[in-house]
């Protein structure tokens, strides 16, 4: 296959919008290609999108579906052609996940939280998701064996346990959620921060995080620890974020990458002492990332409308349920974890929600190096992934942000710096934040770039970067991003102008 004349963005290989041909051979990028020729003259061409943090498979995702027939009926698409029927908006069925990511030009997605003991379920669902290559991060942050190794300061044994856990769970990397909190939740309480002792285990969250980070580097894993902070979702929690990041700054990475990846930073960049004086602390967080190189983040951008919150941070979900008086599922997992699921609606007119919306954008725009920031919505916590084009266009267009802000709560400008930010991301930066950086942060050598031998995952959009001004033409850009002109997965055209043409099974990466 030859893709002719596209305007190619491959920042990992130093290509920033050059007109060039791309060649594919046997599912991989190659020097030469033959056979099918795809005419991409003047069109935006990027590597297939990589989502490093999404909730797409496993017990809590399916619990979301089971408790939300109201959501399932929102996304009905009848079976047709190669497609099996689709349902759901915030909690789409497996088929919808594959097709909808592929339509947007995404070809890889990672499930962000799987307990070892329930990994079989996660993999049953991952196998059922068509097209995408997938992986699952394995939860270790509030696990009995982990806490005992940490308490005994036996990092060697901890590393052995982590290695066993990843192999048993067919996991890709080490996920830590509200360290110690799951154990406390076993008897209905929570830890108050990284230095709060975990009941019955004589360790702290800080010790768990550092121990797992050391074990992670001892094992030279492709990905760093992937961390969901304590106190997530609470006013004033930016101090917890900074305090936790400081713990890790002296750990030496075993590979050319970060030491810690922070999940959905938006939910941990909160100021204020309560929801009443709630405000953005994104500038402080962005400053920290600008002056330190051991950490990366994904946004967890929030958008207005429906979401379903789901996390291994079970006490947080109980809080959400009491706050919204919405339905609540909880699932404690013996020896390991706990989790919760609560449907949510974010309102434009609610100041707290508007501030949360602004924080995600601020983080992306104030952090100077796009290699440190991934565009995500923490699907489906901040918003379903189907809304990525909305997030990308907000990042690329100041006029769009201004127009949106004008519809929001009048107090918003006092609680966020967003209105004063002029920066508009360009295609190189978007290609980094949605392709190159997630692949590099995860340690996926064959993803997120077009170097020879890389997986031939390619997205071609009906957009002419040399003619279209995303700042002004954001509506056009959003439409084009929602349905790629071509999505190519491992050298096969899987989607064309929003229509799924082929639905090969993807691989599970581990």
């Amino acid at each position: 296959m030859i893709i002719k004349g596209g305007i190619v963005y491959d920042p990992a290989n130093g290509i920033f919008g050059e007109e060039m041909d791309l060649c594919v051979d046997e599912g991989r990028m190659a020097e030469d290609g033959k056979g099918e020729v795809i005419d991409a003259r003047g069109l935006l061409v990027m590597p297939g999108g990589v989502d490093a943090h999404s909730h797409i498979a496993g017990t809590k995702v399916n619990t979301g579906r089971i408790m939300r027939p109201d959501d399932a009926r929102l996304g009905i698409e009848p079976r047709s052609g190669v497609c099996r029927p689709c349902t759901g908006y915030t909690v789409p069925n497996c088929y919808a996940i594959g097709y909808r990511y592929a339509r947007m030009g995404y070809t890889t997605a990672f499930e962000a939280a799987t307990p070892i003991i329930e990994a079989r379920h996660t993999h049953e669902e991952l196998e059922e998701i068509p097209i995408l290559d997938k992986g699952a991060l394995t939860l270790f942050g509030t696990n009995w064996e982990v806490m005992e190794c940490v308490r005994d300061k036996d990092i060697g044994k901890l590393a052995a346990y982590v290695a066993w856990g990843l192999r048993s769970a067919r996991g890709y990397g080490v996920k830590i959620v509200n360290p110690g909190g799951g154990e406390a939740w076993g008897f209905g309480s929570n830890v108050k921060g990284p230095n709060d002792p975990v009941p019955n285990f004589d360790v702290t969250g800080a010790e768990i995080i550092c121990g797992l980070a050391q074990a992670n580097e001892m094992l030279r894993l492709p990905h760093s620890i992937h961390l969901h902070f304590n106190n997530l979702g609470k006013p004033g929690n930016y101090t917890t974020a900074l305090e936790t990041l400081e713990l890790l700054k002296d750990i030496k990475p075993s590979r050319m990458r970060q030491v810690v990846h922070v999940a959905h930073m938006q939910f941990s960049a909160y100021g204020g002492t309560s929801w009443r004086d709630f405000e953005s602390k994104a500038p402080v967080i962005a400053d920290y990332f600008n002056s330190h190189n051991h950490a990366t983040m994904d946004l967890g951008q929030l958008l207005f409308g429906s979401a379903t919150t789901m996390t291994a941070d079970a006490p947080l979900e109980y809080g959400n349920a009491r706050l919204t008086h919405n339905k609540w599922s909880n699932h404690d997992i013996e020896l390991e974890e706990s989790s919760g699921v609560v449907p949510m609606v974010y309102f434009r007119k609610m100041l707290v929600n508007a501030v949360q919306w602004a924080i995600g954008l601020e983080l992306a725009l104030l952090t100077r190096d796009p290699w440190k920031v991934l565009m995500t919505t923490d699907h489906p916590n901040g918003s379903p992934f189907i809304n990525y084009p909305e997030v990308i266009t907000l990042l690329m267009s100041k006029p769009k942000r201004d127009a949106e802000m004008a519809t929001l709560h009048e107090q918003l400008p006092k609680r966020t710096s967003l209105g004063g930010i002029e920066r508009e991301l360009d295609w190189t930066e978007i290609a980094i934040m949605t392709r190159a950086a997630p692949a590099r942060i995860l340690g996926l050598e064959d993803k997120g770039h077009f170097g020879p031998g890389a997986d031939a995952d390619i997205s071609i959009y009906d957009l002419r970067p040399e003619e279209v001004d995303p700042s002004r033409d954001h509506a056009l850009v959003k439409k084009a991003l929602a349905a790629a002109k071509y999505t190519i997965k491992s050298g096969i055209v899987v989607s064309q102008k929003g229509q799924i043409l082929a639905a090969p099974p993807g691989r599970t990466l581990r």
Partner: protein
Amino acid sequence: MRTITITPLKAFEISVEAEIISPDKFAPLSLSQIRSLSIWQGNRKRKLSDLFRAEGDDGPAKVEDVTITLQGDFSRAKRIAEGMTAGKVEAEGGVGMHAGNNMKGGLLSVQKDAEDWLGREMRGGKITVRGNAGNYLGAGYRGEKCGMRGGEIEVGGNAGAYLGEHLCGGSIRVHGDAGDFPGAANQGGTIFIGGSTYLPGAEMTKGTITVRGRARVLPSYQKMEIMSIEGEDFQKYVGDLVEKGTGELFVRVGSS
């Protein structure tokens, strides 16, 4: 005015999904276009004329000027008048499940019985039933927070269980008895039951339920004063206190 009469050609062995039988769908179409509308029976997509005779005035017409008369038995035709915004649908017999689903305006009148989920998630307009209504009258869809949000439903006979479940507005009037759990999770609608019922207003937070017959009242309702309504004495209750509800429940004195 434009009147269209629809008559089933024969009894349906498998139920028909008739959401296209609505003034909104018919208004812009000619009779022959109406006859060739597609309609599902089980897994078979058919033409309306394969299953029904459609006669009357040729179109188009404004929605509010359309009257659809349903002649014969429509009890196995589901979703009639779904989402209608204006005009009239007059059933001379009964209607199947989900008639008047998500209705927003106009009038649906039924001379005989209506099956389950009549007026589900209704937002406006009026539904009248001479006979009985099934379960989930004016209720919502599984897992949703809101059922009917507005409009009016009146039933001459009895209604089944779960009437007005998750009611968020509008009013339902049943002259006969109502099955178990009327007005469960009522959030602001009005229900009148002429006959008897069982456990009204479970988890009601707002709204009113009046029962002229007997009613078993939940232990989570606070007994209040006796009030006179249109010359009759009613025991007033407030609840459902399990949800810190301020809904009002009136049960006629002497009937319980």
